[in-house]
C-alpha cells in the first residue's frame, strides 16, 4: 500500500514535470539552464533592439558585471565603432546586463564562465574569457578567418540559433 502510494506519487511528479517541459512554447522558451538556453527568462526590449543592430544581442551571462560596465561606459568607441546611445537607454540596458551577468548568480552558464575567470578580471570581449577559449579549443585558427565566418564575434556563423540563445553542440554547423 505504502509502496503503491509512493509509486503513484512518483508517476504523478514525472507526469507534471513532463507536461511542464512540453508546455513551454519552443520558439520563445527562455530560461538559462532550461533546455540549454543561455538567455535570461525575461528579455529587455532595449537590450534586444539596440545591441542586436550590428551583432546578435550577446547573452548577459557571457560576461561579469564589471565587464558590462566597461562595455556600456565606452559605447562611443565600441570596438572601433561609435555605438553611442541616449543616457536613459544606456542605463536601462546596463541594469539588465548587470542583473543577469555571469556573476549575478542567476545562470548556470554564468557560473561556468566565472569558474574560469581570474579574480577582478573584467574582459571586454566574450572571446577573451577562458571559458570561451576552452569551449572553442578544437576550432582551428584558419576556420575563424573564413569569409563565411568573418569574425569570432559572429556567433551565428556556426551557431545558427545563437540569437535565440541556443548554443547546443548538436546545433553547430561550421560553414565552408
Amino acid at each position: 500500500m505504502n509502496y503503491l502510494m509512493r509509486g503513484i506519487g512518483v508517476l504523478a511528479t514525472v507526469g507534471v514535470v513532463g507536461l511542464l517541459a512540453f508546455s513551454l512554447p519552443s520558439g520563445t522558451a527562455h530560461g538559462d539552464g532550461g533546455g540549454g538556453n543561455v538567455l535570461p527568462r525575461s528579455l529587455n526590449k532595449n537590450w534586444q533592439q539596440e545591441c542586436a543592430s550590428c551583432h546578435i544581442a550577446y547573452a548577459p551571462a557571457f560576461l561579469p558585471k564589471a565587464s558590462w560596465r566597461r562595455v556600456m561606459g565606452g559605447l562611443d568607441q565600441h570596438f572601433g565603432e561609435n555605438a553611442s546611445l541616449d543616457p536613459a537607454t544606456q542605463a536601462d540596458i546596463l541594469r539588465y546586463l548587470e542583473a543577469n551577468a555571469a556573476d549575478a548568480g542567476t545562470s548556470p552558464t554564468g557560473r561556468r564562465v566565472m569558474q574560469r575567470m581570474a579574480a577582478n578580471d573584467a574582459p571586454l570581449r566574450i572571446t577573451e574569457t577562458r571559458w570561451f577559449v576552452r569551449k572553442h579549443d578544437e576550432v582551428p585558427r584558419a576556420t575563424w578567418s573564413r569569409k563565411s565566418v568573418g569574425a569570432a564575434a559572429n556567433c551565428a556563423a556556426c551557431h545558427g540559433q545563437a540569437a535565440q540563445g541556443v548554443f547546443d553542440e548538436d546545433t553547430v554547423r561550421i560553414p565552408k
Partner: protein
Amino acid sequence: MIKRALYSGLAMLGMASTAALAADSPASLMTRYAQEAGVPVSALSAPRGAALYRTEHAGRNGQTVSCAGCHTASPTQPGQTRVGKRIEPLAPAANPQRFTDAAKVEKWFRRNCQDVLQRECSAQEKGDFIAWLSQVK
C-alpha cells in the same frame, strides 16, 4: 465579449499612438534638415548626397571608410556590418521603413558620421543625403 472589444480597442489605440510617434517621412525630414540649415528644401542636393555616400575617407589603421563600405555600392541592396550581420537596404524604394523615425535617423547619423567622417554631419549634409536616397529607384 465587451472585454474583448475593449482590449482590441486599446490595442488599436496603442498602435495609433506608436504610428503617431513614428510619423516622420523622408520629405518631413528633408524639410526639418533644410530648416536647421537655414536653406529652402529646393537647396538640398541629391548629387551632393550621393557624393557623401560614396566618398572614401581615411580611417583607422590605413584603411579607407565610406557609407558604401557597409551599405554596398547600391543602397537598394542589403549591406553587412563588420561582424557579418545583415543591414537592411537604406533606400526607401527598397525598404519603406527607412527615414520614418526621426530619433532613429539622428542616432545613426550621429554614430556613422563619426565613424566615417570623424565628425558630426551638418544639417545640410543630412538633408542632401536623404534627398538622394529618396530618389534612388
